[in-house]
């Protein structure tokens, strides 16, 4: 029987502890996680790039739902634990979910500190800790205005830079004379202030916030000296407090944080504490590297009695604001027993300062040029004597040993135990060892196997240099995944070469592009078939044998080998005649299940393969055609009732949906395409999670695309707005045609957008009407060949009849002879 492990909190520290645990002792524990946030584990270090728009939420997910499922973890999302009953050994969350434990990890993290000044509870006063905060900020940023950030530390400045990039005016208020005074000396703090001001961010130092002004929501901020600054939102980033209420209520020893020993156990030996909520040897940590070190100790301790201990950490910091390079580590206060080495290059905006005590580096601040940060940090942690290189130390590693070296040689010179990835504590030899032993060739693979460069990403350059060093010429930084084992070419290469070399059949592609197998595999053949079909409409003959069974027999295979059949219902509209025909088919063929789909149609499940042609014949007779519910193709266009019936409808959404579906049905696409048209912003057709969606307004039509509501959940992005239905249709068709020509097989629209970028899509279909027309016309041409009902072609005795009946029956007597 596995023991029961309950984890309270689902941040980065417990996530890492579980990774270690599942590696060391798979199956030893049955794990239950309570997460107060309604989502999976994501990389909080990357909130700033999400805020600034350089990354999306999907980019920063550490463990997706599949990960929890594959490790048998029960994850309670959005459930905050309210009590720990140490006598009964249970925890209980809001709304009464209770879980028993043998071992418990408390990882409640920290709470942002809100300065208790007048107005601090107004709507619009935000903190910056999780994705909800980011989303609130983004919503505020979408309509512009001014944001005031209280606190000029790491988080505050990242928030300020992000909000500025999102188009808000930003003022940073900082109590101390210089920014980030805990990590930077005054000189670097001043340089930082100057480059923030150059970006248009107002910085006010020595600013004592007196009150936040406003009736119900924030309107401004008043300083002690009487200055008033207009503000739409106020972001409080003055510091964090370990979140200890739960532990305190359970009677655990609590100081500033939850007190733990070197074995990470609290005053109750069956309860561990981990992360920002912890106080260890009087110290609380808010950076990721120490938390990961703690996580490793917790995992080892959970496996059984062991020597693994946490002994405290030396920490370093990097500011993650694009274009500002800043590194600091250790102690850099001045003192009689210390000397300092300083390098300034004003024109280049470079400032470097090392603090040396007893021939060892004890502190480092680098501004403007931080490549040597890892090296200095390594010297500092190892307490390496520096007198030998004292003269050239400040110039960095590449100047040691006489002449300047190239960066690869500098990385080559690092010792095997030099730390490359500070977040995850990964040293050089672990990375090079994994590259050689496992034959890794891409950055993603190195990340997967070693975790290096997988958290904040600032060491990516170093990791790539190590890969270049280890792999030599075999390393190609742009290395892309081949489409399958039959070729070294990527999907992008293959698509490009099909057009460039006018390759028009699967054997031709395989011959010219030097396929390694004689006739491909189940991954590449369907992809090639689609590419050729999309690129050479009217010329290429569809290869049935290179299609998955669903597209070959135009129905969806089910787990028992029967099929499901979904006829089209244009825009979700149907008639009594259609419903009667469906009812008759269900009776006649004794179809076991009938279900309404999410796409406003009717699904008949459990049809025998032999019956399919006859079922189709009957449905065809009632005027229905294939709904393509099985295809990488246009699926449904959901609609609401729009101006036909709805008192809020602004346009004829049903009419537009039907028109789009009638125009586009039959077209094949890289992956499935689901659409919807909503008649007003209330959005009853749920258009904003579709591949393409339309929101009607009084002013016209808002064209959305790139939503997702499956494995990933993502709202759409707005492509553009148009005034008429004709323009809406042209825009949608051109967009889908561009996707048909550029998308990789099985790549949904939202992933295509992520790969190619919004700017290139807008340039092709929005900005230039002539270009848009070209895509539109190409789609129409292609439709001439694809708008045929596959059911009608195959119904009773038509095409591909071999598919639907057995080749022979060997009767029992014959077999027994």
């Amino acid at each position, binding site marked *: 029987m596995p023991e029961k492990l309950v984890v309270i909190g689902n941040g980065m520290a417990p996530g890492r502890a579980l990774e270690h645990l599942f590696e060391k002792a798979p199956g030893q524990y049955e794990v239950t996680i309570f997460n107060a946030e309604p989502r999976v584990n994501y990389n909080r270090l990357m909130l700033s790039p999400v805020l600034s728009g350089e990354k999306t939420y999907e980019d920063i997910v550490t463990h997706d739902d599949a990960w929890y499922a594959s490790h048998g973890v029960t994850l309670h999302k959005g459930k905050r634990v309210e009590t720990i009953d140490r006598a009964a050994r249970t925890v209980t969350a809001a709304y009464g979910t209770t879980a028993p434990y043998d071992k418990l990890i408390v990882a409640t993290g920290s709470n942002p500190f809100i300065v208790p000044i007048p107005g601090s509870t107004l709507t619009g006063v935000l903190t910056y800790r999780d994705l909800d905060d980011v989303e609130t900020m983004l919503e505020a940023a979408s309509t512009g205005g001014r944001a005031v950030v209280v606190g000029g530390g790491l988080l505050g400045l990242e928030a300020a830079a992000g909000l500025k990039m999102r188009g808000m005016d930003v003022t940073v208020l900082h109590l101390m004379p210089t920014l980030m005074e805990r990590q930077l000396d005054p000189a670097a703090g001043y340089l930082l202030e100057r480059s923030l001001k150059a970006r248009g961010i107002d910085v006010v130092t020595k600013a004592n916030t007196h009150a936040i002004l406003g009736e119900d929501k924030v309107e401004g901020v008043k300083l002690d000296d009487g200055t008033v600054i207009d503000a739409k939102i106020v972001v409080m980033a003055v510091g964090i407090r370990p979140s200890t209420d739960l532990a305190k209520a359970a009677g655990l020893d609590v100081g500033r944080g939850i007190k733990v020993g070197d074995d990470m156990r609290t005053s109750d030996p069956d309860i561990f504490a981990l992360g920002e909520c912890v106080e260890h040897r009087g110290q609380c940590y808010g950076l990721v590297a120490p938390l990961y070190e703690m996580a490793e100790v917790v995992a080892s301790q959970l496996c059984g009695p062991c020597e693994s201990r946490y002994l405290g950490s030396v920490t370093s910091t990097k500011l993650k604001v694009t274009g500002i390079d800043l590194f600091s580590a250790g102690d850099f206060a001045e003192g009689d027993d210390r000397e300092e080495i300083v390098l300034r290059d004003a024109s280049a905006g470079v400032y470097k300062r090392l603090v040396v005590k007893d021939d060892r580096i004890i502190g480092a601040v680098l501004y403007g040029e931080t490549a040597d940060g890892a090296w200095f940090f390594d010297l500092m942690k190892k307490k390496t004597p520096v007198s030998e290189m004292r003269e050239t130390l400040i110039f960095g590693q590449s100047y040691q040993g006489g002449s300047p070296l190239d960066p690869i040689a500098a990385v080559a010179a690092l010792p095997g135990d030099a730390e490359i990835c500070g977040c995850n504590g990964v040293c050089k030899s672990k990375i090079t060892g994994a590259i050689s032993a496992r034959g890794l060739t891409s950055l993603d693979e190195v990340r997967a196997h070693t975790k290096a460069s997988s958290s904040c990403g600032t060491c990516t350059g170093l990791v790539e240099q190590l890969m270049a060093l280890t792999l030599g010429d075999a390393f190609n930084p742009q290395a892309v995944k081949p489409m399958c084992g039959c070729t070294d070419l990527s999907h992008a290469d293959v698509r490009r070469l099909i057009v460039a070399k006018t390759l028009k059949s699967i054997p031709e592609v395989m011959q010219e592009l030097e396929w390694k*197998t*004689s*006739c*491909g*595999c*189940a991954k590449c*053949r*369907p992809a090639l078939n689609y590419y050729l079909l999309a690129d050479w409409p009217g010329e290429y003959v569809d290869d*049935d*044998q*290179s*299609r*998955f*069974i*669903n597209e*070959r*027999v135009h129905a969806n*295979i089910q*787990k028992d*080998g029967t099929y499901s059949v979904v006829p089209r219902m244009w825009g979700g509209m149907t008639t009594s005649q259609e419903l009667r025909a469906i009812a008759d088919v269900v009776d006649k063929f004794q179809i076991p299940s009938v279900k309404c789909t999410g796409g406003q149609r009717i699904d008949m499940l459990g049809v025998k393969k032999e019956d399919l042609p006859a079922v189709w014949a009957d449905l065809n007779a009632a005027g229905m055609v294939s709904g393509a519910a099985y295809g990488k193709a246009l699926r449904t266009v959901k609609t609401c009732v729009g101006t036909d019936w709805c008192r809020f409808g602004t346009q004829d959404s049903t009419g537009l949906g039907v028109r789009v579906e009638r125009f586009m049905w039959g077209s094949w696409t890289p992956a499935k395409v689901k659409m919807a048209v909503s008649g007003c912003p209330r959005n009853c057709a749920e258009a904003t999670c579709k591949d393409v969606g339309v929101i009607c307004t009084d002013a016209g039509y808002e064209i959305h695309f790139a939503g997702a509501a499956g494995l990933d959940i993502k709202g759409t992005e707005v492509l553009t707005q148009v005034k008429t239905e004709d323009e809406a249709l042209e825009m949608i068709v051109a967009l889908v045609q561009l996707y048909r020509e550029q998308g990789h097989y099985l790549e949904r629209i939202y992933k295509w957008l992520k790969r190619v970028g919004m700017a290139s899509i807008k340039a092709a279909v929005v900005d230039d009407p002539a270009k848009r027309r070209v895509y539109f016309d190409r789609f129409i041409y292609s439709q001439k060949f694809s708008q045929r009902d596959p059911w009608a072609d195959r119904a009773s005795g038509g095409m591909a009849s*071999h598919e639907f009946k*057995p*080749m*022979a*029956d*060997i*009767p*029992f007597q*014959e*077999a*027994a*002879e």
Partner: protein
Amino acid sequence: MSDWHRIGLVTDIPRRGARCVNSPFGRIAVFRTAEDRIFATEDRCPHKGGPLSQGIVHDSSVTCPLHNAVISLKSGEMRGPDEGRVRVFATRVDPLTEVIELSLEDEAAAIREAAE
């Protein structure tokens, strides 16, 4: 023991495709490769029972339509991380008439035949 059953012509099956034969031992999938080689296996993937006759045929393998298990048509072995095997049946083709014959004899005989 002569146990050969005539089941049809090579051209009854599309190249890189398959057809089914019903037998007292259950459904049998008969495959035709790109090079016109004929193979027969039970029509049940060892993974979750998917109908192999509905899969994509490549080289002398088939990929199951349910969860993409790849099965060697020669040996019946599942390729890749999972282990498992389907029963294979011997086939022979008359070079003049292109008639396919199938044997329901034991598996060992079938493997010998396929190896030839």
